[in-house]
């Protein structure tokens, strides 16, 4: 009834179409990446991912051996099938390829339609049929086979080769483990520290509480950029340097304002009766915290854990500064941004696969725990 255009059928359709367009715009780029990661390098650079389910014209080169040549009257004849060439045969495992054009020069691999006869520069006439069979006639004895280029409809092919390369040859497996190593302690450690502080700020009365809460709100927006130089030199001077320990500490510190803020907002909303009842019964603050507050705050704890997990998993800045730049400690974001984009800039299959490996875990977390994420967002934005 109060929808913007929901009063008539036409309006409803317009709304649906608009939303469909927006959803597609939001979804298609990611799908493109996903599809590309399963395609071979040749296929990627010859047709867009949106054509992946269809056949593509790919160019092949066949070096025909001259040893099958025979004499027919005055002519020397060489016959055979280009699909027997080992390299081409590999691309057409079921042997049903079809030539859409052929040529004899690398600059014009699709000069002639199948069935036409063409003069070779080395002498002789070459005919290639659509099924790949060819016939070379020459007045001279054929002692060197011609090089023939063909364009052939290649069926769509999907492969796990990229994943194999990325994980085994490119060291992405190591980067994956490094990312996990950074993420898990950096997610777990701040939670407890923040939970105690949040309880104090929510349910304990002491002078200066308001100022502290305001300070936490202020610290929420401090740009991390400020922290990089002073903290790195601090870490170096106390002997931590660039290391996993350093990045755990850094992520803990940077995640605390959000953690304290989120948890305090949640804890303040817990029913006062329960807590006061427990106090009357003689429970200490420590007992109230561990036995009542902590279990009741589970949704808020989960929200923060998801945020911190996504943030540390996806982070590039802190990892670049607080971890050494060698391959043995590179996380995935650094690996992709500094390593793969530089050295494999043109290898789209590898890039797509590496990106997909790095976003797979956050996507799983996102889709399974969306409820907590939304709840956290709603509690976390300063109202």
């Amino acid at each position, binding site marked *: 009834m109060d929808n913007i255009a929901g009063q008539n059928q036409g309006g409803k359709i317009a709304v649906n179409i608009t939303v469909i367009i927006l959803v597609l715009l939001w979804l298609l780029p990611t799908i493109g990446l996903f599809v590309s990661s399963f395609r071979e390098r040749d296929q990627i650079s010859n047709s867009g991912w949106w054509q992946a389910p269809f056949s593509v014209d790919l160019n092949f080169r066949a070096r025909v051996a001259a040893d099958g040549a025979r004499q027919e009257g005055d002519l020397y004849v060489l016959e055979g099938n280009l699909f027997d060439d080992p390299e081409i045969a590999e691309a057409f495992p079921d042997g049903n390829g079809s030539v859409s054009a052929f040529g004899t020069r690398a600059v014009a691999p699709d000069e002639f339609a199948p069935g036409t006869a063409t003069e070779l520069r080395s002498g002789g006439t070459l005919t290639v049929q659509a099924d790949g069979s060819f016939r070379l006639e020459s007045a001279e004895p054929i002692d060197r086979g011609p090089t023939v280029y063909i364009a052939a409809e290649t069926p769509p092919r999907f492969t796990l080769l990229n994943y194999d390369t990325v994980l085994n040859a490119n060291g992405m497996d190591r980067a994956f483990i490094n990312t996990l190593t950074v993420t898990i302690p950096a997610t777990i450690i701040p939670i407890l520290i923040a939970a105690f502080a949040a309880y104090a700020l929510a349910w304990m009365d002491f002078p200066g509480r308001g100022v502290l809460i305001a300070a936490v709100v202020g610290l929420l927006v401090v740009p991390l950029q400020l922290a990089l130089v002073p903290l790195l030199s601090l870490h170096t001077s106390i002997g931590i340097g660039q290391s996993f320990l350093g990045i755990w500490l850094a992520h803990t510190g940077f995640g605390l304002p959000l953690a304290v803020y989120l948890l305090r907002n949640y804890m303040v909303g817990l029913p006062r009766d329960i807590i006061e009842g427990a106090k009357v019964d003689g429970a200490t603050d420590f007992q109230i915290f561990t036995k009542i507050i902590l279990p009741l705050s589970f949704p808020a704890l989960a929200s923060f854990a998801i945020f911190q997990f996504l943030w540390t998993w996806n982070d590039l*800045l802190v990892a670049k500064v607080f971890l050494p730049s060698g391959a043995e400690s590179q996380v995935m974001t650094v690996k992709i941004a500094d390593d793969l984009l530089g050295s494999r800039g043109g290898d789209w299959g590898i890039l797509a696969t590496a990106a997909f490996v790095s976003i797979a875990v956050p996507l799983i977390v996102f889709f399974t725990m969306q409820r907590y994420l939304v709840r956290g967002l709603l509690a976390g934005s300063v*109202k």
Partner: protein
Amino acid sequence: MTPVLQGLLTIIIGVGGCVGYFYASNIILDKVIFPAKGPQTGRNINRANKVRPWLFLFPAMFALGLYLVYPVVGSFYRSLFNRAGDEFIGLGNYANLFAEEAFRTAVFNNLLWVLVVPAMATFLGLLVAQLTDRMAWGNIAKSLIFMPMAISFVGASLIWKFVYSANPDIGIINSIRDSMGLSPVDPLQIPFWNNFFLMFILVWIQTGFAMVILSAALRGIPEETIEAAIIDGANPFEVFFQIKVPQIMGTIVVVWTTITILVLKVFDIVYTMTGGNFDTEILPSYMMSFMFRDDGRATAVAFVIMLLVLPVMIWNIRQARKEMR
């Protein structure tokens, strides 16, 4: 020791340490320093309860102080020294920055980002929130538009590198141009407009955030106000712009400022997409070009970012204090 083992050990030490600290410090406070027995029982309990909040707060305050408060001061202090850090040059780094063409470009681009990204993300978020409200498959649509939130800036950049590719067989934009008979272009090299192509990546990520918050705000609007407007003959657009939007204005401002703050921090997109070339540098990526090379300059740029964030920070604090009263 492998990093994985080290990680496990850190979790055990970290969590165990925390629990141990809180447990032990409370025990010591209650049993040793101010025992709740003997002649001064009442006074001791009161004193213990005065100290206890600080026991709870200490680890968080220490970490916040060290990792977020100290850097503000430390960065400013460092920015007053030269590259090697041994000579005090006052505001010399700032003077050098402002004299530099690249810095001015970065500031200009950053202002563009700050104007465009929050506006577009909030607008699109509001649009989706309104359109999907009470739609049969609204939750699915929202979930899909929210999805980029989970993707790293680096991953998102790679995703859009495919879209923007100058090769018509890879980039969908150039494929469409190709089919219309236009020659391929590299969107990231078109002067000035390339900034907007980069901004759109962040809009793509942040629209979901705006949508989730605004969608909840729209649901919170009292039905009566809308019904009254409809009875008075308001059309759907009037209901939206004159009844709904004014009521969620506070939330819109929150979303807007939150995204603004984010825009001032994100360096990943520019770093992966163009490396700051083709006049696309923004302050956070400009800062990274000095990191490890000239700490004086790097901290000066960081402090400029801090100054830009400051108004929002003050506004946030005032809002929070108002709310507590």
